[in-house]
């Protein structure tokens, strides 16, 4: 039994878009960045947050009866949110899953047990496990434990990272991985700071250092209209990737607003409506520019 624990969102089995084959995505909670368009707001902090999906609530009132703090039916009212102590009692009595903790504590053993049931699918599809988040490297002890055990089981491992970490602290973990997705959200340090709350210096430096590893590297750009979709920024990104990575590859991920309902459920303010998805034509054009710089475009579709 490995009782080391961490904070996670629900692992997602049967994922086919984040690496080869059929994979399980293990979402680590907690993130050093504060991207204004974040699609997984529950993963910002690695603490519990009770969500309340109002459209699923049937108004039975069970949660209000059991709540020790006297929180009313609509947890998303700021006044009710303040009272919530995250004891989780309401989730236990909720009939429809309207109240739900989106972040949960799992031990390493528990995560491994979930993955074990999927292993045969990895074997047949060339899939494996992808660590994501949040930012997986923020909980480096748990990540290390998982990566080491799974590596010894010869399971293909990938990570999706913001690139915001101390390289030397986790280099041993990265060495266990087959595939690294790293985000470059903007080449302009100022703008990066404006949109994510941090500069890009560390991220760019880490991207370059990935060459010290044997893993395949794919630089991902979450493309958001008006934020980072300018020709100038994309070409600069491509040039940087070409110069920094031995086998330069990029993937463009168009922004989507699927995360909006999670903001609502957690009583948080939704991202600005100004964030928009680029058109498929615009994406094609950007992909063309990237290829012209000698960078391969990949897509797991």
């Amino acid at each position, binding site marked *: 039994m490995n009782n080391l624990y961490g904070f996670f969102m629900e692992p997602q*089995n*049967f994922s086919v878009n984040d690496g080869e*084959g*059929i994979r399980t995505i293990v979402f680590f909670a907690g993130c050093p960045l504060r991207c204004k368009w974040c699609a997984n707001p529950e993963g910002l902090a690695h603490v519990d947050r009770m969500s309340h999906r109002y459209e699923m609530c049937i108004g039975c009132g069970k949660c209000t009866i059991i709540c020790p703090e006297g929180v009313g039916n609509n947890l998303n009212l700021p006044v009710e949110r303040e009272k919530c102590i995250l004891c989780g009692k309401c989730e236990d009595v909720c009939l429809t899953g309207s109240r739900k903790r989106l972040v949960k504590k799992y031990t390493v053993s528990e995560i491994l047990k979930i993955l074990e049931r999927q292993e045969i*699918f990895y074997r*047949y599809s060339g899939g494996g496990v992808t660590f994501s988040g949040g930012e997986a490297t923020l909980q480096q002890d748990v990540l290390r434990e998982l990566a080491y055990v799974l590596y010894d089981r010869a399971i293909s491992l990938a990570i999706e990272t913001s690139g915001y970490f101390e390289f030397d602290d986790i280099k041993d973990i990265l060495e266990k991985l087959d595939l690294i997705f790293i985000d470059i959200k903007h080449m302009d340090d100022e703008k990066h700071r404006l949109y994510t709350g941090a500069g890009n210096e560390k991220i760019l430096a880490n991207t370059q250092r990935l060459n010290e590893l044997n893993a395949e590297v794919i630089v991902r750009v979450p493309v958001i209209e008006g934020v980072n979709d300018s020709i100038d920024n994309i070409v600069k990104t491509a040039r940087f990737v070409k110069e920094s990575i031995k086998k330069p590859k990029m993937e463009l991920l168009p922004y989507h607003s699927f995360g909006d309902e999670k903001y609502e459920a957690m009583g948080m303010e939704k991202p600005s409506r100004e964030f928009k998805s680029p058109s498929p034509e615009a994406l094609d054009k950007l992909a063309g520019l990237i290829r012209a710089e000698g960078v391969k475009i990949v897509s797991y*579709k």
Partner: protein
Amino acid sequence: MVTDRIEKIRQNYINSKPAISYERARIWTESHKKTEGQSTPLRRAIAFRDTCEKLDVKIFDGELIVGATGEFRKCGILTPEFSWVWVDREMDNFDKRVQDPYVMTDEQREYVRENIFPYWKGKSLEEAFLAQLPRDTAIVAVDTGIVDNDSKWRQAVGEITPDYEDVLFKKGFGGIIREARRHIAELRDITSENMKKKEFYESIIITSEGIIAYANRYAREARRMAGKEADVKRRNELLNIADICERIPENPPATFHEAMQFVWFTQVGGILSENPLALNVGRFDQFMYPYYKRDMEAGEITRDEVQELIEALWLKLSEWVWTISANTAEFFAGYNQFQNLTVGGKTRDGRDATNDLSYMALLATERIKTHQPGLSVRIHQDCPRDFLDAVMHLVSKGTGFPAIHSDQAGYQMLINAGYEPEDARDWNNCGCVVPHFRKTGEWTSAVNINFTAALEFALNRGYSRITGLKIGLDEKNPASFASYEELEEAFYKQFDNLIEHSVIATLVAQNLHKQMVPRPFLSSCIENCMDDGVDLVDAGAKYNLGPVLTGIGLAVTSNSLAAIRKLVFEDKVADMGTVIKAIDANWEGYDELRQMALNAPKYGNDDDYVDSIAIKMANHYYKEGHKYKDINGNNFNTAFMGISNYLPTGKVVGATPCGRKAKEPLSEGVSPFAGSDTSTPLAAMRSAAKLNQDIHSGGTLLNLRLSEDLVSTKRGQGNLGNMVQTFFALGAFHVQFNTISTETLLKAQEHPEEYRDLLVRVAGYSTQFVNLSRSMQDAIIARTAHNKF
């Protein structure tokens, strides 16, 4: 693209309505009037020959493969010797009934009522069965939806695969006649057994003469039409057809075209002889390959011509309409005759068997989009990637085809049933999802057993909640069950009782088939029947397996037991009495409790809490069913097959503790209850694979619905292929996918005229969506679509 010819035939086909022809019944009846007093096998053989000699000859426009079972394009025939009572009772409504309507005119009805049915009064299989069935079994087993075997006393058995490799293509029916004569000459000792054998061989000679005569009449018609044909190309085609029909099926086929025509004549023979369910084509790519190879190497045929002939056969296979009662149609919806055709897999000596024809069969189904043949593929673990990809490509087209089977599980099922390894390796699919072999006599769908009804009886003192009738055994007040174990015991008591009645109903039917409806034509297509001089009904085949009991509602019943265990005996949020009141009230006024029941663990999510209940039930089912022996001394077998039986069986069961409301559909095969497999398709597969599928030699079935965009890319299809291989590695036998968007289905409901060729998978087979009743369509839409990869 299909050729213009095929497209014209296809359009002609899909725009025709299924219609009833009484011609076969008329000739059959007139023949029987002339043979009174003769033995049953001979009378049936003579009636068959008379039918072959007198039935209208009909060559439709542009056809390359010819032969019709009646005057209509989509043609259903009557077999009053099996049952005329239900036809008489139901035919006034044939064109009005909800599921599988047929066109029948008042003149036709008048004719059969005056000239055909009176003769059969008191002589049909149905009447004999109902007269002989013990009363207490009849209460449980006649038109109840609880134990149902009416397809075995209102219809012929079918469930057979003609042996092309070792019998038909080797000998031709001319050779069969010579062989029969030789046997008769050799049977010199005067014993009762030998006299019976002689009679058998005589019946075989007569049916063989019949099918040859039928072909020769088509040869004459083709020649006559050629004489009047202005178009030179068509004239030559007709002359070629005439030549072919003169040579085969009397002689073994020499060319691919002859072999194809031979297959269709054999199907027609089977249809005219008994209108059977599941008259399978068998391993098409294997027995046809030598002819393909020969013709290609000789430069006598092109690949395009082969493809066109395959597509022509597909259309012929779709023409025949199975004439069935409204009750049977609920169980076997969609005009489906279950002519299963298998491609892929391994050879008898264990090598990969895939060849060009395997791929061409997939392509034909993709292009023709009719519900026949029931295309099945065998996938082994080392199957060529190209073939796996081609299968997944067809899946992505949303026709519901093919039924995808594990080569290894099919082999294991037959080994467990006592087959020799070479024969087990040579398995083909029967009907929907039954592993089968061409030297086998078997009732592969003998009875449908409603598992959930057993639970209802346990929870309602033996009474039906819907009808209020006492059908089950006595039971105590359900509110007084003090433990889960006690409830479980009560359930199994009722369950075993249903199996007992299923066995009784089957034995009565088996005995009557033996006496009343011997099968000379189909026996002539099976090797050992010919060698030993024994008809199929007398267990003449090399392998005679026990009848298959088909279980329905495994998921619903397991979910219900799990819900009670959790809510009443573990969490104690409700007592037994409250749960009973709630289901008595069809959950009205018990919204909260129902919500809790819906939240309880559900089969299909890889949750051992409920999956273990399902495993126990399936294992118990096998043991209990297997302990009984049929009239030939063979153990009964079990299956979790599909068909559309989960709808009618649901209509007769009240609300269930899993949260299901009264009369809603149950669950099919080993599939989860519709909409309750909310995790991933991988979890649904894991749940299904836990069930020791290979002990259920009658087959198992898993249906999943995938959102169409999941398989819209090559990579999506690639992942699906890998997923299927994983499922098979876990020991499972079958999976089939519907990949049509809900949006498309809703549109098809609204504008059926625009979606006449939209094929969907019902269960173990596919049929045109617009041919299904509204409730059946709704049930298909309700299946959970897995749209998250």
